[in-house]
Structure formats: structure tokens, C-alpha cells
């Protein structure tokens, strides 16, 4: 069976978004992110796991019937599953396609991994993590200066 045939196993949507090229195994964590967004409470969501992909070997995919994707969800996707493709669908056609890249800054998306960081003692304080250098997967807490990986930050997501 070709990948195209497999994708068709998830019904096409008339309007909404496809989150494609999710690394296989990350589909459920991405679903969890969607579940935490009250703005998407009425959206119909379809999850597909472990599809064959010529580019990735295996991949997960999610389709959402919603008018818009919350900005915070997109930011969290960049943390949890960078590299995913967001396709906007109208009249069953892809009208826009964006690849989510790892940004240089994460603002108030995650808690610091350092338990002795002041941002963990005073949770109302907005956290900020800066990428060490372009292309790096290492980020530095601007407060306590602890360096951590993207995966560690993804394990410390805020609400």
C-alpha cells in the first residue's frame, strides 16, 4: 500500500488543519497539547499513528476541523515536535503549508529544569529560554543560566 493510500484512511476534511510529519510516537503527546487548549474544545480531531512515509520512514498525523490554531499550540509544537508541517485546508484543498521550526526563544512555554531556579519558586514569573547558537538543540534559561536540551524543555511544559 502506498503512503498516499494510507493517508486516505483518514477522511479528508473540508476545512481546518492537518498537522503532518509528526515523528512516529509523538502523535499522542501532540494530541495531549491539543486537548489542553480550551479554544479547540469543539474541534473534531482525528489522529493517525505510524503511517509509512517515504521521507520519515514512519510518521503520525492529526487532522483538526477548526477555524484557527491557537498561537500557543504552535509554539508548543515547536518545542514538542519541531519539523511538523501545518497544512491549512479549505474546500478539501491545501491552501497554505508551513513547517514549524525550532525558534531562537521560548517565552513562558516551559518550566526551568533547575529546581533551584527562582522561576520555579515564583511560578508567576515568565520563563524564557534562549537557543545557545543557531542550529543548536541546547537552550539556556535566561534567569539561572542552566543549559538544557529541547527534549528536557518538552518534558517541563507549562499549562
Amino acid at each position, binding site marked *: 500500500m502506498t503512503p498516499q493510500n494510507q493517508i486516505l484512511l483518514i477522511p479528508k476534511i473540508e476545512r481546518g488543519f492537518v498537522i503532518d510529519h509528526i515523528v512516529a510516537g509523538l502523535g499522542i503527546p501532540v494530541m495531549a497539547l491539543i486537548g489542553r487548549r480550551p479554544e479547540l474544545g469543539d474541534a473534531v480531531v482525528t489522529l493517525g499513528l505510524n503511517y509509512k512515509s517515504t521521507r520519515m520512514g514512519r510518521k503520525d498525523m492529526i487532522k483538526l476541523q477548526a477555524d484557527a490554531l491557537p498561537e500557543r499550540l504552535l509554539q508548543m509544537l515547536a518545542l514538542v515536535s519541531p519539523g511538523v508541517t501545518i497544512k491549512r485546508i479549505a474546500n478539501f484543498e491545501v491552501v497554505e503549508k508551513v513547517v514549524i521550526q525550532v525558534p531562537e526563544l521560548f517565552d513562558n512555554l516551559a518550566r*526551568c529544569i*533547575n529546581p*533551584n*531556579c*527562582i*522561576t520555579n*519558586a*515564583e511560578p*508567576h*514569573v515568565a520563563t524564557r529560554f534562549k537557543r545557545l547558537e543557531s542550529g543548536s538543540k541546547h537552550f539556556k*534559561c*535566561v*534567569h*539561572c*543560566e*542552566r*543549559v538544557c536540551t529541547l527534549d528536557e524543555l518538552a518534558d517541563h511544559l507549562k499549562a
Partner: protein
Amino acid sequence: MKKDLISIDDLALEQILDYLDLATQVEAMPEAEKAALLPGKILATLFFEPSTRTRLSFESAMCRLGGRVIGFSEAANSSTAKGESFSDTIRTVEQYADVIAVRHPKEGTARLASEIAGVPILNAGDGANQHPTQTLLDLYTLRKFFGKVDGLKIALVGDLKYSRTIHSLCRALLMFDGVAMTLVSPESLRLPGYLTKAAAGTTATFRESDDLPGAIRGCDVVYMTRIQKERFPDVVDYEKVKDCYRLDAQMLAAASPHLKVLHPLPRVNEISPDVDATPHAGYFEQARNGVIMRQALILDLLGVRPQ
């Protein structure tokens, strides 16, 4: 835009050299002139954990500039004991002072204070993270003793794993030209790998050793540190290494005549008192330099430059 001093990593070499030059200028001024620089200005020293030396050094610096000092010396004496957040303490104290020096057991507090306060913040130590005024006074001391920092041969001795003083000093020394560092520590207290790796692409070098007498030969500076009991999760591990490096006058007999011994203080057993009387002892002058460097920093952050 207001200035703060939070992390040595925020400073370029030019800024560090500017601070060293300003400290030199301040030191050369007559005391009476210095005392006329900051009349009516108030420094708040907010010490959420005790550090007598650093606090008194800041307070002496401000008093000798003609300013005044308010503050507290431990969290038990502040509203923190009543449950006030750090953020609220800063928001309140900035109404009372022109500049704030803050020391706190949690990392990141000085940066947070700088984000909140409209007045300049000086980091007087945030947990295990940064202590930039110590680094700057160390650099000032090196330049005073040797006329330069470039090319010095420096043995760093003791707790190289946990000492934030050593970590910050290493990062600063990497900015200078051709500094050769010999790292003398027990196996369990080696300098973290990310710091030795940071030498790549610089003209600095690191060499590890566990032989203190050997490291002293050919060195310009021996920088001793205290092995900090409070950093060890298991006191048995501390007992194993606590007295592993003890410098005494006899050990220095074969040293270069110009060698200086530095220490951020307080010392416990790592420098024998008989070193104090030798020309190698530089640590009390280093403490004096702390006042001068902090004067320079307070002046700079308040936008006051001596004529």
C-alpha cells in the same frame, strides 16, 4: 537605559577592561574626592543568605563614595520570613534605593530583579550560578600584581566542580590572550567538562593535575578555593577530600619570587597561616580590591564617572 551587572557572560572583553580601568582611576583618587561622588545616593544590600564579607565590601564601597546603605543580612530579617515573594521585595525596595545589591540562594534571582526593578541591580551571588563582582575584583587583582592578565600562568586549586567563583573566573580568563590554567583538584571535584571545552577556539589552555607542589613551580598565581562542605550530598565524601590541598610557606619556598596566592575567602585549612607573612600572600589585598572594584561598579551603574 539602566545598567545592571548580572552575569560575567553578559560582558564583552572591552567592558571588562573598562571596569578595570575605572577601578584603577577610583583607587588613585584621594579619599575626600571619592566621598563627594555619591552624596544622597542609597545602596540597598538585600542578602537573603548570609555573606558577611561580600555585604560589608559593598557597604564599605558605598560609604566611602559618600552614599548611604540600607538592607538586611539574611532572609529571616526580611519580609520573606512573613511569606513575601522575592519579586514583591524588589518592587518595594526599589522605591527606597538608587541601586540594589542582591544575594540569594536561588539561581536567577539577580536577573529577575533586573527585569522587575527600575534601578540598577548588582548580582552579589545567585545560588551556584554567578558572582560577577568577585570575578571582576579577581581580574583587577591580577592586573594590579602583574600589570596584565594576558599570558599569566594560573593554578586553580581545590573545589573546581562546585565553585562558582572558579567557573566565572575561568570564563573571564578565556577572553584574555594566552592564559595557561593548571587545574589542581581531587578526581571528584574536577572542573566541569563544558568549561574545559570552552577553551577550544581561544588562546587559553587547560591542564589537569593532582600535584600541587608541581603546579606551583613555574606559576604566576595560585588561586586557592575552600572545599565547600555544604555542596556535598554525603558528608563522607567531603571528609575524604576536605584537606587534600593545603598550601604552606614551605611549599612556596621553591616558587617564583613574583608568585601570588589568591583566595576568595573565607579560608579554612587550605592556606596555612604561615603563608600570610610571605610576600606571596595576595588574598587580603584581593579583599581590599573588592571594595575598589565595587566602587567602580556602583559608580558606573549610577552613571557617575569621576573626572
